[in-house]
């Protein structure tokens, strides 16, 4: 043991001694830079750079102070517009296909004289729930994710970060926070890990605590679906799609505003400090491998999200059906829970089912909508899977207005992160306190904002 102590002490002594020699990191790094330059001068020859400036020219436009933001909005808008416009028809086709098979399933169950409850559990609970999830979630994902992946592989995301960088500095955060935020549009848990690129612990914590305010893969379908069902009811045709897309973009922008506000608030209170400097590299634009990207995005993202949704939604469907069909004093357990949550939910512009779906949906945001549908379907309003109109009538039957849809979108955007993300935050921060904060801050904001919106809208008599 003594030998180790000596070595530890002498290392410390050496460290002190070296410190007194007064060398700086700049000195070391400067010499390395010089060596790099001389080597590359010997070994690389640049002939007439012809299309070298293409990236730079493009960047002048895409990251320009004037055009940067409008182009960003237009691109996001375009992607969402195409998603909504393209998803409707395949959604309806999938829905009628599932409904077609359901008839045969029911006949089959009758033919083998299966008991009523088994048919209820498997067909009306499980099959219907899964059918709805697949028909409403798969088509938008199949359009949205590949388009997003194309933009990502082309190199557009760092430009988004570059454009947003000034805003984040203004809010007291690190410029790289805009990069981790951009990653949050895919998956918040992955984005939390990506905050490792931020050196300062304070700024990293800001990035972690606010990452949840951008919608992830699991929440995009909810936003897009609810917006297209309720937010553009008075419009038809192309205009309807346009309004729907605008609402989704509005929600996303709202999330970004909240991100900045919360960053600002925290950097003035619990996480005080001045933003550090950094350089952000803008990589050259690269033509993505088109088909590769499409296939990857489809297999990796769309099917992954769907698989996750079904894997959790299927048992949840069964559980919801059981809860709905076990009675305590003539009222089902499900209704007990819903009735209990209802008054509070109502003050937020939601209802007990929605709140229950968010609570049960903690493991993954993908399953919130499925659980909600199963909850509604299990209460006797046995709507067959038909088309999106039928879906809308399920919601309408349960007293939905555009306020319900708007507040569910807001709640989805702002509420606590999913279980995976919370676990990741704990692993990255190793702090129970900050993990709790990362769940509490969004939840409080979600409740406050939906409450305010509901009170204002009702107070003004708009619904």
């Amino acid at each position, binding site marked *: 043991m003594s030998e180790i102590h000596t070595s530890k002490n002498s290392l410390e002594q050496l460290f002190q001694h070296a410190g007194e020699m007064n060398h700086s990191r700049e000195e070391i790094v400067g010499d390395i830079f010089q060596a790099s330059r001389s080597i590359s001068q010997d*070994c690389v020859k640049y002939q007439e750079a012809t299309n*070298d400036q293409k990236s730079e020219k493009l960047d002048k436009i895409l990251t320009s102070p004037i055009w940067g933001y409008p182009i960003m909005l237009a691109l996001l808008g375009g992607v969402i517009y195409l998603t909504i416009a393209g998803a409707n028809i395949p959604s309806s086709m999938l829905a009628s296909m599932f409904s077609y098979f359901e008839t045969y399933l029911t006949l089959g169950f009758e033919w083998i004289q299966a008991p009523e409850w088994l048919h209820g559990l498997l067909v009306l609970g499980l099959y219907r729930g899964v059918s709805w999830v697949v028909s409403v979630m798969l088509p938008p994902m199949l359009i949205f994710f590949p388009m997003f992946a194309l933009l990502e592989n082309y190199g557009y995301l760092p430009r988004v970060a570059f454009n947003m960088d000034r805003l984040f500095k203004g809010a007291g955060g690190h410029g790289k926070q805009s990069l981790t935020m951009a990653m949050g549009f895919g998956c918040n848990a992955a984005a939390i890990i990506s905050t490792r690129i931020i050196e300062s612990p304070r700024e990293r914590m800001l990035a972690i605590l606010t990452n949840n305010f951008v919608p992830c893969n699991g929440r995009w379908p909810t936003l897009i679906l609810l917006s297209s069902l309720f937010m553009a009811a008075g419009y038809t045709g192309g205009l309807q799609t346009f309004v729907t897309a605008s609402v989704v973009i509005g929600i996303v922008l709202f999330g970004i505003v909240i991100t900045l506000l919360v960053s600002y608030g925290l950097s003035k209170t619990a996480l005080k400090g001045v933003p550090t400097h950094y350089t952000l590299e803008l990589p050259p634009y690269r033509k993505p*491998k088109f088909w590769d990207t499409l296939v990857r995005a489809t297999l990796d993202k769309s099917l992954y999200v769907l698989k996750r949704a079904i894997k959790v939604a299927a048992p949840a469907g069964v559980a919801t059906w059981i809860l709905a069909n076990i009675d305590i004093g003539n009222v089902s357990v499900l209704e007990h829970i819903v009735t209990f949550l209802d008054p509070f939910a109502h003050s937020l512009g939601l209802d007990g089912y929605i709140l229950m779906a968010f609570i049960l949906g903690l493991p993954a945001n993908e399953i919130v909508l499925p659980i909600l549908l199963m909850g509604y379907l299990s209460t006797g309003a046995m709507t067959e899977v038909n088309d999106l109109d039928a879906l809308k009538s399920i919601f309408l039957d349960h007293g939905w207005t555009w306020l319900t849809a708007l507040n569910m979108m807001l709640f989805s955007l702002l509420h606590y992160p999913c279980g995976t993300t919370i676990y990741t935050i704990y692993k990255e921060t190793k702090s129970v306190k900050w993990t709790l904060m990362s769940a509490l801050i969004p939840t409080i904001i979600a409740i406050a904002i939906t409450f305010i919106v509901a009170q204002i809208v009702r107070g003004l008599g708009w619904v």
Partner: protein
Amino acid sequence: MSDFRIALAGNPNTGKSTLFNALTGMNQHTGNWPGKTVIQAKGNYTFNEGNYTLIDLPGTYSLYSNSADEETARDYIIFDRPDVTVVVVDATSLERNLNLVLQVLEMTDQAVLCINLIDEAKKRNIRIYDDRLEKKLGIPVASISARNKAGINLLLKKIEGVAKGEIVTSPYQVKYSEQMEEDIQRLEPYVSQIVKGKYPTRWVTLKLLDGDRSFMDHLYQRVFSEGDVSHV
């Protein structure tokens, strides 16, 4: 069982993950932006009946700052001592990328330079002289295009050569200012007594002069825990 461990280092966005996928047949997420890979991915490939484990390190511009991803990459190369460290660089911005290469060469002799995106460089009329680089840097150099899977075989052959000791390297050493070199020489004998050939002496000395406290802490832990083990 794996015969050799190969680490992939390099600047962000040079196509490390694309190369990783091409070699291992895995599907690490790739994307055109820095900061995408921050945790290490591991995969396997075989070449000439040898088994290789490939470790995709986080992309970093240097190994001198103290963000979590740079420390991960640095500690892996220093403490886990991979059999070969492959530094992947972007052919279209070699000069900037070389900074990291030179830093890696201070840490290990067992290195291969992999120049990726060579197709992109050709398009832009950038000519890179592999042979001159090889001579200058003292390590094998292979030009590839990971996304077109071109040049991979040569790269694997060079990795094999270094891993098996068939290719002997003599890495380029950055020469610092006179004062710095003098101080390095003064400290080196003491450092060498402590690290006992386990870690590159010159590099540890530089870290002392750099005043990198966090690295010293990691080194303490290593010296301490490894000492513990040898006493058992």
